[in-house]
C-alpha cells in the first residue's frame, strides 16, 4: 500500500506535466468573420450543395466553420417558370393566368428559401449565411428583411453583373454596387458581405471604397460561367463549371495587396482546393475561405483532413491561433502597389535572360 501510493502520485504528477503542455500546444483555428464566431476559417460556399437540410447537417458534421446557403436569384425564377410552362395541359394558352405567374413562383421560391433558413437555424449550431444574387436594388432590400426575420446570421450579396452593357459608364456600374448596399443595409441589422467579380478598371480603389461602406465583409472573387467554342459543331458551348486548382491566384494576389488597405473582412473564393491554398490565403490576409468545387469533386470528407493538416502546419510553425499568422505576407499599407507590381514583374521576368 505505501509503496503503491508514491507510484500513483508520480504517475499523476507526470500526467499533469504531460497534459498541460499539450493544452498549451493545441492550436485553435477560431476566427471572427462579419462579427460572427467561427470555429475555423473554412466556409462551405454557396452552391447546389448548400441547398438542403441534409447536406447542411453533413457539412456541419464534417467540421466546416460556417455555411453559405445556395443563392436565390431571378434567373432561377424564370427558368422554373419556363420549365413549368411545358407541362400545362388544359391551361395552355391561358395568357391571363400566366401573365404574372412568375410573381407566384417567386413567392413560392422565397417562401421555400425562408423555410430553409429557419430550419437550418434550428438544426445547425454553426453560422448560417444567406446568399442573394442581385441585379437590382429594391427587390432584394425588401427580401433581405424577410431573410433576417427567418433567422439568417448574415447575408452575402452577390452582385452578378458582367460589364457587357456598353452604354453604362464605370461610374454607373460602380455606383450601382453602392446603391444596392445602401438600400439593403438600411433595412436590416445583420451583417452584410459583398461578393464581387474582378471586372473593374480600378479594382483596388473599388475594393477599398466598398470596404468602407456599410458592409462588414468582401468576398473576392465571383467565378463567372465562361463559354467556350466547339469548333466541330461550330457553336458556343458551356465549359467547366468547377474551378481549376490554379484559379486561386487572382484572388491570392488581390487579397495580399488589399488586406492592409480595407476596412472589412476579406473572404477568399474560387480555386481553393487544398489545405495549402487555404494557408496561403490566410497568410496573405484573408479572414476566411470559401470552398465549393472541391466539395463537389471529393465530398465533404475533405474538410476534416484540411482542418487537421492546417493544425499540423500551425503547430510545426509555432502558431497557436490564426491571428498569429494571418496577413503575415500581405503588403503593408505603405508599399506603393504599382511600384510593387513592377518590381515583382521585373524580378520574375526582367532578370531572366
Amino acid at each position, binding site marked *: 500500500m505505501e509503496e503503491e501510493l508514491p507510484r500513483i502520485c508520480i504517475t499523476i504528477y507526470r500526467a499533469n506535466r504531460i497534459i498541460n503542455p499539450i493544452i498549451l500546444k493545441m492550436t485553435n483555428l477560431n476566427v471572427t468573420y462579419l462579427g460572427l464566431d467561427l470555429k475555423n476559417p473554412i466556409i462551405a460556399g454557396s452552391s447546389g450543395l448548400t441547398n438542403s437540410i441534409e447536406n447542411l447537417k453533413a457539412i456541419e458534421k464534417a467540421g466546416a466553420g460556417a455555411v453559405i446557403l445556395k443563392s436565390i436569384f431571378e434567373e432561377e425564377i424564370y427558368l422554373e417558370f419556363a420549365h413549368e410552362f411545358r407541362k400545362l395541359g388544359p391551361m395552355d394558352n391561358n395568357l391571363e393566368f400566366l401573365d404574372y405567374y412568375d410573381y407566384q413562383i417567386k413567392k413560392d421560391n422565397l*417562401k421555400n428559401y*425562408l423555410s430553409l433558413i429557419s430550419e437550418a437555424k434550428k438544426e445547425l449550431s454553426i453560422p448560417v449565411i444567406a446568399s442573394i444574387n442581385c441585379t437590382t436594388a429594391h427587390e432584394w432590400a425588401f427580401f433581405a428583411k*424577410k431573410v433576417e*426575420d*427567418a433567422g439568417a446570421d448574415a447575408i452575402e450579396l452577390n452582385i452578378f453583373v458582367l460589364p457587357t452593357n456598353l452604354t453604362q459608364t464605370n461610374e454607373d456600374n460602380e455606383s450601382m454596387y453602392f446603391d444596392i448596399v445602401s438600400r439593403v443595409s438600411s433595412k436590416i441589422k445583420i451583417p452584410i458581405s459583398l461578393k464581387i467579380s474582378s471586372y473593374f478598371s480600378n479594382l483596388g480603389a473599388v475594393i477599398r471604397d466598398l470596404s468602407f461602406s456599410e458592409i462588414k465583409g468582401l468576398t473576392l472573387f465571383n467565378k463567372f460561367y465562361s463559354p467556350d467554342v466547339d469548333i466541330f459543331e461550330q457553336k458556343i458551348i458551356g465549359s467547366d463549371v468547377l474551378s481549376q486548382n490554379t484559379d486561386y491566384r487572382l484572388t491570392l494576389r488581390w487579397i495580399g495587396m488589399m488586406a492592409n488597405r480595407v476596412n472589412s473582412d476579406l473572404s477568399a473564393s474560387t480555386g481553393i482546393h487544398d489545405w495549402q491554398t487555404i494557408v496561403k490565403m490566410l497568410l496573405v490576409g484573408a479572414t476566411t475561405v470559401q470552398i465549393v468545387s472541391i466539395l463537389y469533386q471529393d465530398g465533404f470528407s475533405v474538410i476534416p483532413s484540411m482542418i487537421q493538416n492546417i493544425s499540423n502546419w500551425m503547430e510545426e510553425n509555432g502558431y497557436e491561433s490564426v491571428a498569429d499568422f494571418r496577413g503575415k505576407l500581405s503588403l503593408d499599407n505603405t508599399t506603393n502597389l504599382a511600384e510593387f507590381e513592377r518590381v515583382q514583374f521585373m524580378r520574375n521576368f526582367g532578370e531572366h535572360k
Partner: protein
Amino acid sequence: MVVENPLIAKSRKPGNFVILRIGEDGERFPLTIAGADPVRGTITLVVQIMGVSSSKLVALEPGDCITDLVGPLGKPTHIGKIGTVLAAGGGVGVAPLLPIVEAFKKAGNRVVTVIAARNKDLIILEDEIRKWSDEVIVMTDDGSYGRQGLVTAGMEEIIQRENIDECIVIGPAIMMKFASMLTKKYNIPTQASLNSIMVDGTGMCGACRVTVGGKTKFTCVDGPEFDAHQVNFDEMLMRLGGYLQEEKRATEIYLQKL
C-alpha cells in the same frame, strides 16, 4: 340570438364563424358562432351594435329570416389536452371565447378565464363562462364590476402564480395586441382570433388579409386564429380602419331613415 340552421349546427366546430346578410341591400359581415345545438338544429350568435349591419340584425324579431347565412367558415380551434389554458376575452370577444373555453375544459384542461370590458353593462356571458372555467377573473376599466383594470392586469396576475401552457385571446384588436405582448414576455404560446374586415368569407377577395410571420394570410380561410406573437397587429389595426369614413356615413344615413 338563436338562429335555426340545422346544417351549420351539425357541421360547426368551436372557432368557426358565419357570414350573414340582412336584407337585399345588406352587406356581408362575419359573426363567430358562440354555440350550437345540433339536436335542435340551431346556432347561437352574439351581436353588439356597432353600425348598420349589426343594428339591422338586432332589429329582427323571432320568426324573421336572416336573408343570407353561410358557414361554417374558418379553421376550427385546435383543441387538445395540454394542461392549463389561460383564456382572455375583451368586450364582445367573450362570445367567440365561450365555445373555445368549453371545448378546452371538456378536453380535460384546467381553464382560467379573464373577461374584461369597459364597464359592468358590457360584461357578457359571465355565467356561461363560469360554467366552463376553473377560475374566472372579471375586470372592468372603471371598476363598476369585478376588479378595476385592464384585461392584461388580470392575465399577468394569473401568469405570475400559475404555469400556463397556452393562452387564447379574443377581443378588440388593440386588446389582443397588448395581451399578446404580455404573453410573449413570458414565452407562453398564444392564439388570437382576428376580426378582420370580410366580404365573401371564402378566401375569394383578400379583404381580410393579415401579415403573420412575414407572410400574407387570409383571416377567413387560414384563420381566424393565428399565432398571436407572429401577427402584425399594427398593420391589422390600420386595415381595420380602412372603411371608417364609409361606415360612419352609412350609419348616419341609416339612423336618419329610422
